[in-house]
C-alpha cells in the first residue's frame, strides 16, 4: 500500500515537471516573426524598401566639411583636396590629404567599404527580385525599372571605386561565405570600365528615358546611364589610365598588367558615348537651365533649383543644410562656421566678362602678371555699385565673368540683400571685419578671404537654420557637353562640334564664344579651363587633375588667400589684397590612386597595393 503511494508521488512529480508542454520538441523554440530574404522579395513594399536602402550608400557629396561617422556613407573629400577649395576645419580629412599625411592604415573616407556594401545589396536584389510576382503595387514595368535601378547603382558604385582606387575587383554576384574569397583580385582598369559600360547599357534598356513622375525624382533614367557610361569612357581615355607609362609595370601577383597600353580609339569611344548621351538627353527634353536673361542667375540656379531640366541624376539628403551653413559669412546672424573657403587660385582663374583671362601667371613675389587686354585692374576700386557688389569693391572683383559672381563670395560682394535677411553692408573678410576673423581666439574664419557661393541657396537663413532642401548633382547635361568637346578634340581635333558645345556652355554663362582657329592643344587648354570654371566645386576638378596628370603640379603647390590674419584693414586697404600662402600642399605620384586599406590586403594576399603606398 505504502509503496504504491510513493510510486505515484514520484511519477506525479516527474510527470508534472518533465512532460513537454506542447507537442513540439521542448527545444524547438525559435523566433518566427523575424523577416527572411524570402519574405522581403515576395512582398512588393519590402522589396522597394530593400532597393531604397541601396541608394542610402550614395556618397554624401554635399558634405564637404565633416568627416563621415564610422560605417556611414562617405562624404565629399575631393573638392578641398584640389586647388579650388580649402576647408578651415582642421580635423577634416582633406587637410590630412593635403599634408600628404595619410596612409593605407588610417583613412576615414571609406569609399571601398561603402561601395562594396552597396554592390552586395544590389547583387542580392538582382538575384532575388524575380521572386516578386507583379501586382497592383509593383507592376511588371515597375519591377523592370527596379532592376534597372539596381543595375545602375551597382555600376555607379563600381565607378566610385575605380575613380579613387583604379583597378578593383568586379563583384557581379553575391559572394558566399564558403567560397574561396581570396580568388578575387583586382581587374585591369579597362575591364572595370568595360563592365561599367555594359552594365549601363543593360540598365538603360530597363529604365525610362526620363523620370517624369515627380514622386520618383532622384531615380536614374536611361539618360543617367548614358551619362555614367560617357564619363567612365572619358576617364578611360585620359592619360592617367590610358597608357600611363608610370603604371606600365604595375601588375598583380600573377603578372597581369592592371593598366593597358595607350589606345587612341578610347577617345573616339568617349566622344561617341558623350554625343549619344547628349542626343538622348535632348530628345528627352533635357537642356541647359536658363530661367531668364541674367547669366549669373541662370548658372546659380542650376545648383539650387532641384531637378531642373539640366539634371540627370542626384543624391538626395533633405536633412543636410550645412552646405549653406558652412558657407554663411560670419556677419550673418547665427553664423559661425565659414569653413568652405574658395581659394585665390580659382578666383584668379575666372575670366573677365569679355571672355579674356585676366592673369597670365605670377611673379616670384606672387604678384600677378596681368593680361593687359583683359581690362583687369587689381588696385582700382569700383566707383559704382552693381547687382553683385557695392561701390568701393576692389578692382580684382570688378568686371569678372557672371559665373564668378554666382560662385564666389568676396569682400565687397552683395549678400542676401533682399528679405528676409536684408543685409545692406558689403562682405568684409579682413580680420575684425564683419565676416572676417574675429579677435577672440579659436573662432572659425575664412582663411582665404573668400567663401564658396556656388551650390548654396540664396533663400537659406542661418538663424534659425532653415532653408529649402537640397540635392547633389551627380550628372547634368553641361558636363556632357564638355565631355564630348574634350573627347572629340582629343580624338579628331577642334572640329566645329567642339566649338559648338563649349560655346553653348559659355553662352549660358554670358560669355562670348571661343576664338576661331585654335590648335588642338590650345583647344585642350581652353576646354580644361572651361571645365575648371563651369564644373567648379562639383567634385570634377579633383578627378580631372588626376586623369590629366596635372595634380602633381597643381595639387603639389601653394594655396593662396588674402591677408586675413592682420587687423586694421578696411575695404580699400591695399595690404589686405596681397596673395598669402594659406597652405603648402603635398601631392606625390602615389596620390594619383588611393591606397587600398591595409586590413583588406591582409585578408587577401592576391590583392596588390597601388604603386607607392
Amino acid at each position, binding site marked *: 500500500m505504502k509503496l504504491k*503511494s*510513493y510510486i505515484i*508521488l*514520484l511519477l506525479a*512529480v*516527474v510527470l*508534472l*515537471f*518533465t512532460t513537454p*508542454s506542447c507537442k513540439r520538441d*521542448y*527545444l*524547438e*523554440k*525559435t*523566433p518566427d*516573426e*523575424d*523577416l*527572411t530574404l524570402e*519574405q*522581403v522579395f515576395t512582398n512588393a513594399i519590402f522589396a522597394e*524598401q*530593400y532597393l*531604397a*536602402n541601396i*541608394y*542610402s550608400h550614395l556618397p554624401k557629396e554635399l558634405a564637404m566639411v565633416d568627416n563621415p561617422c564610422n*560605417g556611414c556613407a562617405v562624404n565629399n573629400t575631393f573638392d578641398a583636396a584640389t586647388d579650388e577649395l580649402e576647408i578651415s576645419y582642421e580635423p577634416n580629412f582633406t587637410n590630412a590629404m593635403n599634408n600628404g*599625411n595619410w596612409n593605407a*592604415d588610417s583613412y576615414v573616407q571609406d569609399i*571601398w*567599404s561603402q561601395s*562594396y*556594401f552597396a*554592390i*552586395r*545589396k544590389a*547583387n*542580392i536584389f538582382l538575384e532575388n527580385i524575380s521572386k516578386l510576382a507583379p501586382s497592383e503595387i509593383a507592376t511588371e514595368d515597375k519591377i523592370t525599372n527596379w532592376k534597372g535601378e539596381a543595375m545602375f547603382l551597382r555600376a555607379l558604385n563600381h565607378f566610385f571605386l575605380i575613380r579613387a582606387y583604379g583597378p578593383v575587383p568586379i*563583384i557581379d554576384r*553575391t559572394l558566399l*561565405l564558403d567560397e574561396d*574569397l581570396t580568388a578575387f583580385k583586382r581587374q585591369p582598369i579597362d575591364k572595370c570600365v568595360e563592365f561599367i559600360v555594359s552594365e549601363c547599357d543593360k540598365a538603360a534598356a530597363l529604365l525610362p528615358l526620363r523620370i517624369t513622375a515627380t514622386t520618383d*525624382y*532622384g*531615380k536614374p533614367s536611361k539618360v543617367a546611364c548614358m551619362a555614367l557610361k560617357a564619363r567612365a569612357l572619358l576617364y578611360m581615355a585620359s592619360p592617367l589610365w590610358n597608357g600611363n607609362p608610370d603604371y606600365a609595370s604595375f601588375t598583380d601577383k600573377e603578372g597581369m598588367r592592371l593598366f593597358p597600353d595607350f589606345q587612341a580609339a578610347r577617345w573616339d569611344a568617349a566622344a561617341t558615348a558623350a554625343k549619344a548621351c547628349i542626343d538622348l538627353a535632348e530628345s528627352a527634353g533635357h537642356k541647359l537651365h536658363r530661367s531668364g536673361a541674367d547669366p549669373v542667375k541662370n548658372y546659380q540656379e542650376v545648383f539650387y533649383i532641384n531637378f531642373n531640366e539640366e539634371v540627370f541624376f542626384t543624391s*538626395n*539628403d*533633405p536633412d543636410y543644410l550645412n552646405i549653406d551653413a558652412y558657407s554663411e559669412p560670419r556677419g550673418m546672424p547665427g553664423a559661425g562656421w565659414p569653413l568652405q573657403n574658395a581659394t585665390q587660385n580659382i578666383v584668379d582663374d575666372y575670366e573677365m566678362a569679355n571672355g579674356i583671362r585676366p592673369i597670365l601667371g605670377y611673379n616670384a613675389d606672387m604678384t600677378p602678371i596681368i593680361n593687359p587686354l583683359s581690362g583687369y585692374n587689381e588696385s582700382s576700386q569700383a566707383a559704382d555699385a552693381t547687382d553683385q557688389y557695392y561701390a568701393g569693391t576692389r578692382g580684382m572683383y570688378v568686371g569678372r565673368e557672371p559665373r564668378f559672381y554666382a560662385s564666389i563670395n568676396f569682400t565687397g560682394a552683395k549678400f542676401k540683400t533682399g528679405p528676409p535677411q536684408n543685409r545692406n553692408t558689403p562682405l568684409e573678410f579682413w580680420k575684425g571685419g564683419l565676416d572676417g576673423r574675429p579677435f577672440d581666439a579659436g573662432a572659425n574664419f575664412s582663411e582665404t578671404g573668400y567663401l564658396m557661393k556656388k551650390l548654396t541657396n540664396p533663400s537659406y537663413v542661418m538663424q534659425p537654420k532653415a532653408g529649402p*532642401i537640397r*540635392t547633389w548633382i551627380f550628372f547634368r547635361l553641361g558636363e556632357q557637353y564638355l565631355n564630348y568637346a574634350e573627347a572629340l578634340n582629343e580624338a579628331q581635333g577642334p572640329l566645329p562640334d567642339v566649338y559648338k558645345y563649349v560655346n553653348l556652355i559659355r553662352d549660358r554663362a554670358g560669355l562670348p564664344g571661343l576664338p576661331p582657329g585654335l590648335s588642338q592643344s590650345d583647344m585642350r587648354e581652353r576646354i580644361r579651363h572651361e571645365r575648371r570654371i563651369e564644373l567648379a566645386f562639383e567634385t570634377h576638378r579633383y578627378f580631372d587633375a588626376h586623369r590629366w596628370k596635372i595634380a602633381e603640379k597643381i595639387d603639389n603647390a601653394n594655396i593662396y588667400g588674402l591677408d586675413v590674419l592682420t587687423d586694421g584693414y578696411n575695404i580699400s586697404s591695399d595690404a589686405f589684397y596681397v596673395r598669402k600662402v594659406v597652405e603648402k600642399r603635398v601631392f606625390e605620384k602615389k596620390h594619383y590612386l588611393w591606397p587600398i*586599406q*591595409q*586590413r*583588406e*590586403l*591582409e*585578408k587577401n594576399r592576391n*590583392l596588390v597595393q597601388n604603386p607607392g603606398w
Partner: protein
Amino acid sequence: MYVPAGRIRPIAGPWAFMFSRYTKIEQTPNPLNLLFMQFSTGFRFTDHLFGKIPGRYLSAARFFTTYAVLLLICSMAALKATARSNAMDAGHQGSAPLRSFVVSGTVTNETDAPLPGATVRIKGTSKGTSTDVNGKFMIEVEHEEDSLVFSFMGYYNTTVRAGSRRTITVKLMPDEESQKLNEVQVVGYGTQKKITMVGAISSVSPREIQKYSTPSLTNAIGGKLAGIITRQTSGEPGYDAAKVFIRGLVSQSGNNKPLIIVDGVERELQDYWTTMNIQEIESFSVLKDAASTAVYGNRGANGVIMITTRRGAVGKPNVTFRTEAAIVVPMRIEDNIDGYEYALLHNEALANVGEPPKFSPAEIQKYKDGSDPYLYPNVNWYDVVLKKRTRQMMNNLGVSGGTETVQYYLNLGYTIQEGIYNEDPANSYKTNAALKRYNFRSNIDVKLSKRFSLALGLSGIISNTNFPGTDAGRILTGLKLTAPNTYPVKNPDGSQPGAFGDLLLNPYALTTQTGYTKQFYNTLVSNLSAKWDLSYVTRGLSARGLVAFDVVDITQNIRQKMPATYSYAKDPVTGAETYKQWSTESPLGFRNLNETYRTMYAQAGIDYERAFGNHYVTGMLTAERREFTNVNATNSIDNLPERRQGLISRLTYHYNYRYLLQLSAGYNGSENFPKGKRYGFFPAIGAGWIVSNEKFWNKNIVNLLKLRGNYGIVGNDRIGGARFLYQSTYNKSATGYVFGLDQNRNPGGKSEARIGNMNVTWETAYKTDLGFDLEMFDSRITLSTSVFHERREGQLLERRTIPIYAGYPGGTVPFANVGITENKGFEGTLQLRNTTKGGFYYSFTGNFTFAKNKIIENDAPPSLYPYQDFRGSSIGANLGYRALGFFQDQRDIDNSPPQTALQSVIRPGDIKYEDVNKDGQITSADRVIIGSYGSEPQIMYGFGATAAWKGFDATIFFTGAAHRDFFFTQGWTAWAFSGQAGYYNVMQQVYDKRFIVGGNNEHAEFPAVRAGSTNNYTGSTLWQRSGDYLRIKNAEIGYTIPVNLTKKAALRSIRVFVQGTNLATWDKIKVIDPESDFGTGGYPIPRNYNFGLEANF
C-alpha cells in the same frame, strides 16, 4: 520547465480525487497522505483565495501557501512521531513478556557528548533500534547472554554483553581511517566518497569564508582555493562582487564565468549567488577538470562552483546568533596635485609649445595662499565628496535541530552596507549609496518513511539599495575631470558652481543634488527534492527527484533631478560680480524600471551503489530540464524562454580502495542552436591509484598517496553573441532613401541584419588533468596538486578574414565557431595542522594557481607585420609602441627616426619610440604586442596561518596575484592634459616625475606635459605597469569565553572576534588599487575593521 499558472488546476483535480479516496481507507493517515491531502486542498484553497489575483502572481501565491501548509504538515508529522513513540514505550512497559527485559542507556562519543542516531543491534538478530536526540536508546533483550552491538558511522563498533544490567552507557571511539574512507564530497548530481574521486575538486570551509567582513561571497574566495582567480574592481554597495574565473580566462569571446550550482541547481540568475548569505553555506567547492564537470555537458567548460546550504541535524535546537560591525575605509583614493601646482603646470604645458602663460605670477600666488578662494579656488574634490570612513553591519540568527523525522535549519540575516558619499543635510532624502539586505533560509528535511524522504529548501533575499541620482562611474569620472581650480566648493552667494560641458555640475552637486535611485531586489530561490530508497528492489538502488523555481525581480525607482549651477566672475576693474547660469533646476522626476527573471528546473534520477566483495560500483543516471525566462524583456527574442535539457550519467568503480575508475558523461542540448545540432555528448574518463593502500606501503610517514588523472570533453554554450545565430534575419527598419520633387517620399528601408550560420554551436573544451594527493604524519601535512591542459575550440568570433569586397556590411558579418585557445598551468594546496600536547593548535595553509592562456586561432588575417599577430599571445593583450625614453633635445629628435606620423611637431620631452620594422620612421606599423599577460592575473596565490590556545585564536591570511598587465590609459589622470590644458585632474605622481624641458630629467617617468599630445598619449610601454600585488587579505583574533562561564548564562558558547580585511597591500601601482581595471579608478574597494560576536545557545 515552465508551468503556466493555469496548468496547475487540472493537475490538482486528479490528485485531489486520488488521494481523498486514499485517505478514506487509511484510518490514521501517515504524514505522506496528509501531505498529499494538503497539497490538493492547498491548491484548491489557493484557487479560491487567489481567484481574483492576476495570473502572474498566482503561481507564487500558491507556492507560498502550499509551502506554509507543508510546514504545518511537517510539524504535525514530527509531533505525531513523538507521540507514537511515547505511546509505544508505555505499551511495552505494560505488557513485557517475563523472560525478556528492557535495556536502556546512552551512547556517547569520545568527548562524552551524546550520539543521536547510533545503531543498537542485538547480535545475531535483525532486531535493533537507534539512539534518539539525546543519544538514549531502549531495546528489548531476550536473554542476558545476548550481546548488544553499538555502531555509528566513522566510529569503531563496540559490542557489550547485556548481562543483568538494565542501563548501559557506551562510549564509541572514532575510527579515523573509516571516517576518511567515508568522507563525502558533493559532486555534480550527487555525492561521492572523497577517497575514490579522480577529479580535481577543491573546497574551502565556510569558517574560512566567514573570516571576511564582506556582503559579497566572491570577495571572500580569492586566494582561498587552488584554481580560482578573482579580481574585485569596485567597492560600491550592491556592485562590489569580484569577477571569478576558474583556472583563468579561456574563451576569447564567450562567457568565462563558471557555472554556479547551489543545492544541486544551476543558479547564476543575475549573479544571485554572490549575494548569498555566507552564514548559510555548508560547503563551497570548485569543480575544475573534465572528470568533475563533464556531467554538466555544454555548460561545464568554465568549471563549476558548487555550493550547498546548511541543513538541520537530529538534536536539540541549536541557536546561533552572530553580529558584526565594521568600519569601512575606502582604499587608494587618487592623490592629485593642488590648485597651485595645477596653475604652474598649466603654464608649463603652454610654455612647452611656445605659448604665453595663462596665469600671471600674482594669480599663481593667489592659488598658493588661498587669499581669493572664489576666483582662485583650490579644492580637493575627493575630500569634499567622499567620506573618510563608513560602516557596515551584518547580523545573523540561525536555528537548527530536528528529530529523526524532521530536521530543520532556519536562518535570518540582515546586512547594512553604507556608501562613501557625503550627503547634503538639506536634502530630505538619502543620497549616499547604501545596501540593506534581508536574507532568510529554511531548509527542512522530512523523513516520511524509512525509505522516503523529502527536502525543501527555501530562501529569500530582499535587498534595498540606494544610490545618488548620478551613477558611481560618472561621479568618479567627475572627480577626475574636475581640476582643483575649476570652481570653488560653493559660489559666494551659496549657489552650486558649474561650467561648460562635462563640468556642468561640480562633483558635489553630482553626488548630492541630482536626486536618488532606489533599487529593490526580490529573490526567491526554492527547491523541493525527494529521495526514495529502492534497496528492497535491489540493494543499493535509490531514486530521487528535484524541482526548483527561482525568481529575481528588480525594480528601480529613479528620482533624478537637475540642480541649478552658476559660474561666478568679478570684473577686475569695476568689481562688479556676475553669475552665469549653466544649468537650470528641475524638480525631482520619477521613472520606474522593472526586470523579472525566472528559472524553472526539474530533475529525476536513479542512483546505485553496491559492493561486491572488493569491487565497489556506483552508478547514476539523471534527466533534467531547465527553462529561464526574461519575463520583462524588451524584445521578442529575449522574451523567449531559454531552454535546456539533458541526460547525465556517471559510473565509478574501485577495487578495494586501490584502483579507481570513473566514466561520466553529459548529453544535453540547448534551443539556441540549429535543429539537428542542438545536442552534444560530453564524456570524460578518469583513473586513480591509491598507492598508500597497497600492502607494500608503509603508512608511518606518508599515510595517503593518491595518483589521479582524467581526460574529457566539456562544452560551453554561453558563447556570446546574439541568440539564434543560425537564423538569417533582415533589418526591418534599415535606412531608406528619399525620392520626389520635395524629397518627401521615403519608402523606408530593409537590409540584411544577420547572415545565419547553420553550424553555430557551443565551445568545446578538451581537458586533461593529472595530479596527486599526499598526506603525511597522520594527515598533519596534506598536499594536493594538479597540472592541467585545456584546448578550447569553437569560440564564437565574428569572421575577420571575410574581405570587405564580399560586401558583408559591418554587423552582418557572420559569427562562426572559429576561435581556439589553449590554457595550461598547475595548482597546488598545502596544509599543515597540528595540536601540541599542551593544547596549542597551529596550522598553515597555502595554495597556488598558475594558468596561462594562449590564443591559437582568432580568425585574424595574417598580419603584414608578424609581430602584430595576436596568435600566441594571451587573451587581452594590446598593441602599443615600445618606448625608448624621452627626446632629450632637438638634436636627439633630429637624429632619431621621424615620429611625425604620430604628431606633426615632436618636441623635447616627448616619448621616443622604437622603429621596430626599421623603415626609418615611426608609424603604426611599429606597434608591437605589449602586455603579454592580459587583463586577468595568471597567478593567484594565498597563504596564511592560524593558531589557537585556550580559547584564543588568531588567523592571518595573505593573497596575491601576479602576471597581470596594467596600463595607465586614457581617461585617467596619468595623461596630464590629454584633452586640453586645464582639463582633468593631474596625478601627483605624474607631476613629481614629469619631464621638465630644460631641467634634469634623469629620473623622469612621464613625458613633458603638452595638451592633447597624440604622440605621448597613446598605448606604449611607458604606461605599462605590473599588476602584481600581495595583500593581507584578512586577519582575525577571537576569544571564546570559557564554557563554565557561559553555562551560567545558559549559553553553549560565546566567541568575540576582531577582523581586518585588506589591511595592507604591496604592489607597483601605488596610486590606485592594483585589482582595478585598466586606467580606471572606480569606486574604491574597502579596508574593513570588523568587530563581532557569535553566541550559541
